[in-house]
């Protein structure tokens, strides 16, 4: 059989091999993995992370560049395999993929960051970036909610942010005996803040149902659709707009997102389920 | 070199696994072709276990449990007896010779019987030759 020369194109499905350098336990089910600083990324982008034999999953990058940190909650086969990784283990990484937060559009604006559970992960890099060049931005509100105090991620960061020039509000759905903070879902934090829609942008990431209600609360505060930015989660198999899984209407979460202006997806009925 | 038959044995924890143990302790010689997998009861056996064994390259599958009436869980093996009867005929119909799938009742004291069953089955499988048919092969149209 005659062979023809192969196309000289890069294979986007081939992950690069990387070693786990550090592991931090966040909660009972969540760990943060640190890798070598090899590629630049934007806060809010994600990578496709492979544990060979278990499979590949999209994971958002939880650090500001140049650090590469991935925070993973064990929920399925692959994320459980990731959770079991040890320092020195080899994984495959493709990316970074996706658009990331609209950092240019945030300059000079008052910023409202709302995270739910592990949804704080893609927002963490953004907060780190804003704090590192604080004078370029207006007011900074960080609203964060988790189910219980033990489900709060990035405890050290929360501690730091509470001392930084930012307004941090943390809440839990269910308190334990040591919890002295707010109790209730994340939307119960809004009345405690002085957030106004003037010159503001809100950035949200969390479970679908939480985002749905946060959008409602923001709209009650007279935020326009285009002042709301969300980071979406969908099943993804390729990360590069081929496999079809992550579509929301005509958009692909992997290449058109994962960050969307709420205006772009507001009229598709399945958007924030 | 001739390929040695590979047998996957699903042995119930309370009788047949102990029976296999006894065969070992009593130093009864029997062929090393059986890979034993302990299950709590033959009643726990999902038909997929048997199918998957054949698919992954077993030449024979043995299911061994307590004698009917002696189940540690009262009736697990009685249910298994019915299921395996159906399974055995079904596999035969699909083209996997009946002799490749055996169901035996071996108690904890029947070390000799266990060794005998394995020996008999190994001999039989040697005569039948390897079961190539079901083994994983793939990729068409390339």
């Amino acid at each position: 059989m005659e062979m023809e020369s192969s196309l000289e194109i890069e294979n986007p499905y081939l992950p690069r091999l990387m070693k786990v350098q550090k592991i931090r336990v966040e909660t009972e089910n969540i760990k943060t993995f640190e890798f070598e600083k090899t590629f630049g990324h934007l806060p809010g982008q994600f990578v496709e992370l492979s544990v060979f034999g278990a499979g590949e999953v999209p994971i958002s990058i939880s650090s500001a560049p140049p650090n590469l940190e991935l925070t993973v909650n064990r929920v399925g086969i692959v994320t459980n395999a990731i959770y079991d990784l040890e320092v020195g283990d080899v994984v495959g990484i493709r990316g970074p993929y996706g658009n990331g937060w609209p950092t240019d559009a945030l300059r000079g604006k008052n910023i409202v960051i709302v995270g739910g559970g592990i949804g704080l992960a893609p927002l963490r890099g953004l907060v780190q970036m804003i704090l590192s060049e604080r004078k370029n931005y207006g007011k900074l509100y960080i609203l964060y909610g988790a189910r219980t105090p033990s489900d709060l991620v990035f405890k050290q960061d929360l501690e730091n942010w509470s001392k930084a020039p930012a307004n941090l509000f943390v809440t839990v759905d269910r308190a334990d005996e040591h919890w002295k903070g707010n109790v209730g879902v994340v939307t119960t934090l809004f009345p405690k803040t002085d957030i106004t829609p003037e010159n503001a942008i809100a950035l949200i990431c969390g479970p679908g149902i939480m985002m749905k209600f946060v959008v409602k609360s923001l709209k009650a505060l007279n935020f326009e659709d285009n002042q709301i930015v969300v980071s979406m989660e969908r099943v993804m198999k390729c990360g590069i707009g081929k496999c079809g899984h992550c579509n929301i209407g005509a958009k692909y979460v992997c290449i058109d997102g994962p960050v969307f202006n709420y205006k772009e997806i507001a009229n598709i009925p399945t958007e924030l389920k | 070199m001739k390929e040695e038959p590979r047998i996957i044995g699903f042995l119930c924890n309370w009788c047949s696994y102990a029976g296999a143990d006894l065969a070992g302790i009593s130093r009864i010689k029997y062929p090393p072709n059986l890979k034993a997998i302990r299950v709590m009861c033959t009643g726990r056996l999902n038909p997929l276990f048997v199918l998957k064994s054949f698919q992954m390259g077993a030449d024979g599958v043995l299911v061994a449990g307590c004698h009917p009436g002696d189940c540690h869980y009262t009736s697990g093996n009685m249910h298994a007896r019915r299921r395996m009867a159906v399974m055995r005929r079904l596999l035969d119909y699909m083209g996997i010779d009946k002799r490749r799938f055996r169901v035996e009742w071996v108690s904890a004291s029947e070390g000799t019987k266990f060794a005998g069953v394995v020996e008999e089955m190994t001999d039989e499988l040697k005569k039948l030759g390897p079961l190539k048919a079901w083994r994983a092969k793939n990729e068409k149209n390339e």
Partner: protein
Amino acid sequence: MRKMSEVHEIAKIEIAIKEHASSLLSEGAECIIGYDKDGPCFIEDLKEVDKLVWNNHCIHNLTKYLPDFEGKVGIVVKGCDSLSLVELIKHNQVSRDKVFIIGISCSGILNEKKEKYKKCKNCSHPSPVIYDVLLGEKPVPKEEDHSDVVELESLPHEERFSFWERMFSKCIKCFACRNICPVCFCKECLIDRRESKWSSKFVSTPEILTYHVTRAFHVADMCTACGECERACPMKIPVLKLYKKLRKDVKELFGYEAGLNLEETPPLISFSEDDPEP
């Protein structure tokens, strides 16, 4: 050619179906599951009752849809379909008092080429075994035909295997056979549970064989040989030949036939002291 009397009979049945549908809906039934000119249809509105038809092409086994409904429904059921309905009731998927069965004695369904379907040629249950109202004249039942199974059984193992291998190498794993099966009512199929790694999305003949044999085994004492799986298969794989083997074996081994009555316990969830050895 169909006899004139048969044509008349068919028209009479259609009128009767519409009448029953109307009265059921006006008595508060949630839905009537029947046939329209495009196959299965769901009539919820009295005004739409006229869409219902009965003709020689009403092949679908509508009992598949019953578990989707919570309220009272009326359903059009042929002889063969009624067996599936018995199994659904027996396995607590449908409650008998929530379904009004419009049973139809059927003289066989025609395919696109206007020939009787293979399964209709030797129909063992032309008349429903369970119904609230029975339409049509009772045709004579025939003995269940296992000749194709016996024929395959008589071949040597290698030939049997190569037969199935050739057939299943065509399978594209669309799961139509499973999804159309009335007794495949599990909310989540074992085959879809990727966590378990028992099945793979990898399409290879051994993988496909494992899927089909697993499914066959799971429906061994529930399959009523309604033949919907075989009809649905886009690759024309004679899967019914597999399921009929199980019906035959279960009858030979335990004297049980699925779908005949509501009382008998399915053999694979029970046992007896004097069962045959495997």
